[in-house]
């Protein structure tokens, strides 16, 4: 029953996001701040993880190909498919649930415990619009982060393959181009956009409705990470079933 209450309150919160809007000039500044915190602030960790995970994927693939009948370009092919279809959009989003999600929950949660949200409400500001709407808009730039993750993941795979001597550069590039289906890119970006909305709203919900003090802010961040991850995994399954099956 508790979970139904949370789901109901989450959708009621979404209903309030567009009501009684904040002045455009103020909102513009909030969006820019959130793009800086949520998008630009994530580029470093995304680049680092993508590069090395792409490398590991290609090494693992190469090490598991024993048969001489399997062409060498399969390493590039497997790296491309893993990175484009799952690693960049889905697993990077789960990592972002920890990075961006925790930031959102703890920053809104701290505002709750220090009565800053009450202060906004008393002034007549729709605090849900003021706090959550700019995060949803900022997260529309999230596909840009995932594009970088895709590029660096494949680039990391290429570097690892070449420098470890598992296959030649031309084999790897040939593999990247093998059986390319542009709908896979559409699928990846559709997922990314849905995940960006989940990444902005579920952590916001957990921060906004938290009760208690500093300890509860920490707990809310953890709960928010768990639920954001679960929802991403479930939604990933549904989108995959709908678009690829």
């Amino acid at each position: 029953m508790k979970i139904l209450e949370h789901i109901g309150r989450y959708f009621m919160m979404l209903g309030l996001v567009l009501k009684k809007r904040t002045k455009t000039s103020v909102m513009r500044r909030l969006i820019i701040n959130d793009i800086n915190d949520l998008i630009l602030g994530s580029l470093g960790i995304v680049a680092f993880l993508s590069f090395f995970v792409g490398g590991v994927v290609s090494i693992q693939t190469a090490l598991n190909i024993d048969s001489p009948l399997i062409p060498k370009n399969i390493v590039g092919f497997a790296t491309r498919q893993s990175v484009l279809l799952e690693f960049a959009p889905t697993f990077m989003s789960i990592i972002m649930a920890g990075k961006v999600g925790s930031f959102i929950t703890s920053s809104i949660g701290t505002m709750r415990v220090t009565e800053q949200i009450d202060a906004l409400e008393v002034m007549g500001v729709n605090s849900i619009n003021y706090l959550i709407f700019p995060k949803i808009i900022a997260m529309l730039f999230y596909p840009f982060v995932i594009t970088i993750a895709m590029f660096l993941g494949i680039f990391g795979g290429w570097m690892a393959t070449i420098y470890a001597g598992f296959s030649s550069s031309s084999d790897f590039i040939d593999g990247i181009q093998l059986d390319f289906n542009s709908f896979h890119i559409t699928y990846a970006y559709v997922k990314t956009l849905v995940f960006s909305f989940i990444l902005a709203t579920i952590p916001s919900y957990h921060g906004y409705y938290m009760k208690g003090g500093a300890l509860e802010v920490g707990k809310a961040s953890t709960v928010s990470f768990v639920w954001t991850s679960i929802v991403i995994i479930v939604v990933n399954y549904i989108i995959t079933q709908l678009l690829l099956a």
Partner: protein
Amino acid sequence: MIEIKSLYKSFGEVEILKGISTTFEKGKTNLIIGQSGSGKTVLLKCLLGLLIPNKGEIMYDNMSHTVMNTQEKTNLRREMGMVFQGSALFDSMTVLENVMFPLQMFTTQNKAEIKERAETVIERVKLKDANQKLPSEISGGMQKRVAIARAIVMNPKYLFCDEPNSGLDPKTAIVIDNLIHELTKEYEITTVINSHDMNSVMEIGEKILFLKNGVKAWEGSNKDIFKTENKAVTDFVYSSELFKKVRALYQ
């Protein structure tokens, strides 16, 4: 002026406010006092519109909150200033930005006019040098002054303060009390302060509402409070050794 008529508020089965009726007059410093758990904060939140009462009525200058439409309630909110117990300053903004915030949100003034008004108010609370500092870089007393400046920057009709001098040393607490009292007179505001500080009661309590277990146990002024025979009030007032000595001196 704020008039409260038979106000009831419950949370589930627990009844917090039980038929409170009183009047808070314009240009006066009104104090709500009582022990922790007596319903002071719930009453203040009802006055602010953060909680909806189960029964009863709150009249703001003869306009009942219960019959106001959404726009009227929004307009009323903009006539209210609030000083929170922990100041509730936006910690990502400087002192000046905190005070400018309500003006930026709700007025059509240009940036220069907003800045000028905010600086005037900051100067009024004697904080000019702290304009560019973040709330984390200033003392608790200074934070309270910024909170007061932010609360009055829109020229409110009603000023609400939730324990404005909690966590402050006695000297700073008196400065804050006096500042609120001066501003109440200067701008003719209806000020309602939630407090359990007897120094505030003695210094600025022009009207005092004493709550006990959600019921109005007594009301009067700071002059009357030492004369009353009401047991609930005397137990509260003379719970400290200092006030017992003051009473002995009077007697």
